């Protein structure tokens, strides 16, 4: 039987090779296996491997599929990628942008500025084609592997069946050389929105489908439009009910048209017809090539729970959002960031298995926030009732002359990392006057330090770190590194970590989220916070 790929590739990155498991004569057992080599699967594997945990990725293709899908990647994602060894390559290739403009018909009704803040290694957003994003990540895997990290990606290894037990999962895998089986202690399902793993376990994936179709066209042209995000409601050029124009690297521009619900996909994908829509938008004289086109419908939904015993779901397999807000891949990377250190701690015997339940709590909290935001945007773009449409139009109408209505114009609220408020791992805030943005549960904002390095570089773990700002550290538990920083000459650090306070101590998790903070702290408090943050104490 010949092998059938489900989609053509942009980059062939991990060609199939026969693995020794296929000739072992018995079922080989692995520690952690990840199904799906998309951005989330590869990030999770890389994170684990860099912590010394052997990670095996099974993907049913030999690289990254054609077609861009995600283009907007957020600062937090780049910071995570930096820790994994590929943030700089992404930024260097990506298009940095700050400004978004929203038009109704011909008039600008709202604009936003991502207000670049000083003292961050990475910009608020870059645009980069998803295949490049994934390619840089796989290149980081290759580098890590060359340095001895225990990671392997097996191309053209399609999972076709599974059997989960209390202490592991047995997988049936198909390859161009025929089937084999392997057993794994832990299975991480990163097999995307159509996750077969989810179906095999009979788990629900409920939520909302938006009754609208969006035509996505990436076109290649050398145009001198600014590198801004332009979004039209009811555009004057009438190519769709809404439209988007946004620049990517290599002279590629993302164009989106909202087509409505009752359409004929085949007709709409006719290149001549797509060109007609684009010509109306760009004018008849602009020359371009169609690079990639597709039609999407969008959903917002999530699984009830992400952890099911030894099977853990991450990325689109666990939750799906509409792309308005760029919260898909960006939140998936945060899943990987959240799961990696926890699973590693459990496997090394440093933390009880129940620590993994906090992955569920924290990332479901995040998924709900992402779903809420992207549902609201999609409701504004695609009003679902006549009344909703009337109010949407009223906002657009008012936005032209009444400033209050402008912030209500919702063409997407861009991805920001979740703060894990209420997480069982947090210790109650004990820094009076401390800034809200660094409260327990929050991701640490970066800051530039006196020697030119960045704060986040010093918070890379592998374990917890105690950040000390002008305070005296207590007697420390063994193995907890301390980072003592001078704040007198560093207004960024003061603004982001002290606020009104004179001094502070921050206990920071391996994923750079704040676990606890105090104005003053003794050994007992610190030990309790550390236990709590590792799921050891109530």
């Amino acid at each position, binding site marked *: 039987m010949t092998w059938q790929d489900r989609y053509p590739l942009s980059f062939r990155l991990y060609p199939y090779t026969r693995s020794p498991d296929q000739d072992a004569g018995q079922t080989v057992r692995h520690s952690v296996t990840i199904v799906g080599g998309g951005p989330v699967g590869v990030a999770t594997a890389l994170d684990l491997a860099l912590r010394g945990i052997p990670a095996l990725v099974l993907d049913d293709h030999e690289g990254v599929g054609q077609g861009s899908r995600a283009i907007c990647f957020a600062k937090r994602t780049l910071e995570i990628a930096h820790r994994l060894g590929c943030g700089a390559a992404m930024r260097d290739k990506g298009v940095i942008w700050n400004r978004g403009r929203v038009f109704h018909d011909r008039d600008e009704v709202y604009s936003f500025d991502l207000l670049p803040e000083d003292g961050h290694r990475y910009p608020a957003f870059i645009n980069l084609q998803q295949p490049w994003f994934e390619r840089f990540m796989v290149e980081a895997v290759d580098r890590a592997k060359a340095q001895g990290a225990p990671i392997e990606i097996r191309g053209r290894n399609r999972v076709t069946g599974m059997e989960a037990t209390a202490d592991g999962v047995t997988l049936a895998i198909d390859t161009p050389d025929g089937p084999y089986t392997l057993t794994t202690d832990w299975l991480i399902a990163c097999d995307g929105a159509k996750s077969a793993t989810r179906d095999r376990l009979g788990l629900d994936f409920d939520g909302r489908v938006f009754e609208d179709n969006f035509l996505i066209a990436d076109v290649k042209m050398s145009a001198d439009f600014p590198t801004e995000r332009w979004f039209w409601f009811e555009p004057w050029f009438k190519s769709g009910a809404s439209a988007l124009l946004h620049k990517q690297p290599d002279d590629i521009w993302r164009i989106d048209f909202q087509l409505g619900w009752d359409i004929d996909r085949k007709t709409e994908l006719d290149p001549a017809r797509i060109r007609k829509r684009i010509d109306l938008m760009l004018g008849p004289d602009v020359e371009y090539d169609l690079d990639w086109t597709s039609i999407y419908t969008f959903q917002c939904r999530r699984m009830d729970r992400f952890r099911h015993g030894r099977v853990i779901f991450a990325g689109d397999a666990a939750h799906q959002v509409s792309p308005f807000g760029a919260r898909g891949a960006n939140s998936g990377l945060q899943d990987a960031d959240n799961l990696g250190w926890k699973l590693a701690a459990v496997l090394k015997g440093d933390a009880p298995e129940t620590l993994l339940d906090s992955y569920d709590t924290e990332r479901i909290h995040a998924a709900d926030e992402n779903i809420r935001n992207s549902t609201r945007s999609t409701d504004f773009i695609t009003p679902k009732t006549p009344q909703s449409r*009337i*109010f949407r*139009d*009223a*906002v657009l*109408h*008012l936005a032209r002359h*009444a400033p*209050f*209505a402008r912030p*209500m114009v919702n063409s997407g609220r861009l991805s920001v990392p979740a703060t894990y408020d209420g997480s069982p791992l947090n210790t109650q805030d004990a820094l009076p006057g401390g800034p809200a943005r660094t409260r327990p549960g929050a991701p640490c904002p970066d800051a530039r330090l006196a020697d030119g390095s960045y704060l986040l570089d010093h918070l890379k773990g592998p374990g917890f770190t105690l950040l000390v700002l002008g305070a005296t550290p207590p007697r420390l538990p063994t193995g907890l590194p301390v980072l003592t920083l001078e704040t007198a000459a560093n207004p960024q650090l003061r603004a982001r970590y002290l606020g009104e306070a004179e001094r502070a101590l921050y206990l920071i998790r391996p994923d750079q989220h704040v676990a606890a903070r105090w104005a003053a702290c003794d050994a007992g408090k610190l030990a309790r916070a550390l236990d709590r943050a590792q799921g050891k104490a109530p």
Partner: protein
Amino acid sequence: MTDLTLDPNMTAPDDAYAALIAAHDGLTREESEALNARLILILMNHVGDPRVILQAIETAKR
């Protein structure tokens, strides 16, 4: 924090009511609905306090 007031609060209620009705003179049903929507949004912004707005919505639903 103030609560939503349901006590008389307009100095000339008849005038205010007449102005509201007059604003709809000659409008089609669609135009009227659009006008009402804009009016609600403008008044909501004027009130500002989300608690009062929610109380108003609840009262309207009664």
